[in-house]
């Protein structure tokens, strides 16, 4: 195996081994997405029953939004919490004096983010299909692109959170859970961008998720792929990932100057 890939695998193995030894951690990954799906599933059934036809479409859009937003949330948390695991176990010192490059650390955290997202979201998707008759894959292959765009957005936000943890220490760790929830109102998850006030719409359109959810609604309600929104989502992902990577590297080097890597968990 290529040495760089092996180093990335080394860090992924560390987390996989941890999950293999701890079933409560695996359950915790699935718990919230499944709970969300149960609650929103009943709400959607209620809405669909109120006005058959348009209500059914709205209910489908709601369930799709819940599932896809979980992808962004789990992606961001998967990255940031995997980094925090290293801090909590006071192992970062060993990791940072190994030949693991910062970009390989990021690649490992992204890999863990994908694994944690799949383990967390797939049971919720199965639940939506089995109990509420909502199959996200009925949207077609474009769903994979939606998934990828939201994963990337989660990574960008998580890299910024990790940069804040490098800057401010474990005191910033609460952001690992909460920061993406703060973007929900502007990400057009449950309603179109057009619903937002005019002055807020440019803010929403700078967020990749807003384009993904506009695209999802176009696929669900109109039955067509909104390529423009999809392209915009990936272009914005690229831009935000580049900005987040630059901020992360700046904070990483700053932490090396301040000596913060020696006592980041304190």
């Amino acid at each position, binding site marked *: 195996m290529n040495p760089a890939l092996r180093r990335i695998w080394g860090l992924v*193995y560390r987390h996989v081994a*941890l999950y293999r030894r701890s079933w409560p951690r695996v359950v915790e990954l699935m718990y919230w997405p499944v709970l969300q799906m149960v609650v929103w599933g009943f709400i959607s059934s209620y809405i669909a029953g109120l006005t058959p036809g348009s209500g059914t479409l709205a209910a489908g859009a709601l369930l799709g939004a819940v599932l896809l937003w979980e992808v962004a949330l789990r992606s961001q948390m998967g990255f940031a919490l995997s980094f925090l695991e290293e801090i909590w176990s*006071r192992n970062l010192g060993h990791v940072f*004096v190994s030949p*693991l490059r910062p970009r390989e650390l990021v690649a490992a955290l992204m890999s863990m983010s994908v694994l944690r997202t799949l383990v967390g979201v797939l049971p919720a998707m199965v639940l939506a299909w089995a109990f509420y008759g909502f199959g996200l894959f009925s949207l077609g292959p474009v769903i994979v692109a939606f998934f990828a765009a939201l994963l990337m957005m989660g990574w960008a936000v998580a890299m910024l959170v990790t940069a804040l943890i490098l800057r401010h220490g474990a005191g910033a760790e609460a952001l690992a859970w909460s920061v993406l929830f703060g973007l929900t109102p502007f990400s057009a998850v449950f309603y179109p961008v057009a619903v937002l006030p005019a002055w807020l719409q440019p803010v929403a359109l700078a967020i990749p998720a807003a384009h993904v959810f506009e695209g999802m609604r176009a696929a669900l309600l109109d039955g067509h792929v909104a390529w423009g929104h999809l392209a915009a989502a990936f272009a914005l992902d690229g831009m935000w990932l580049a900005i987040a990577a630059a901020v992360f590297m700046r904070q990483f080097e700053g932490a090396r100057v301040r*000596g913060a890597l*020696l006592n980041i968990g304190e």
Partner: protein
Amino acid sequence: MSALIVENLRKTYPPRRNAPPPRPAVDGLSFRLPMGETWGLLGGNGAGKTTTIAMLLGLLVPSGGSILALGHDMAKDRFAALARMNFSSPYIALPHRLSVAENLRIYAHLYDVPDMEQRIATLATDLNLTELLDRPAGDLSAGQKTRVALAKALINRPALLLLDEPTASLDPDTGDWVRGWLERYSAESGCAILLASHNMAEVERLCGHVLMLKEGRILDQGSPAVLTARYGREDLEQVFLDIARGTRAETMA
């Protein structure tokens, strides 16, 4: 050949807001650690040992000076050096929930160790860890954790090993076992070792040369025997106290 060439190494931490400018933590350190030798880094709390080791490992960016580790400039090419170095400290843990074998596998991957399972088995035999391989690292005693930390530090057959208080919090018997093991390992492997310790008997036993640090500077250096004779003392602990308290410096001046 030198394992480490340190020239005029300096570190002043960035000032904190509304605080007076900090004094240098390391102030013009220069030394050459030859391959195959074990050197000690001695000094009281705040003397600059941890800062020095952190800079040697690339965890901390120096304010000035240079470090050449195993022929690699740590400012430009630290990862090439880190692949052939390793480090052990009782103050940095290994993931507690993972087994000893899993912990060692992680580092075997990170250091791209060939024949991983064979290497782990060899280290487990050498360090009496075979019975512990499947046990969670967090369940081990302090002495067992120290042996696991040593196994992690040796997983890549390092040419340069940095040890921070390798026998801290160990009982005398286990401490003696670790020191004996390090003596044998150093002699057999030709590995250069830089050891920071507060245990003077340990330094006298293991180190051929000692750097005495105070306020970030090398105040004196030499073999334990030479230092002891130079200060007219019976052992290194008394020399350490002279230097730490500045008593000998005054009388020598």
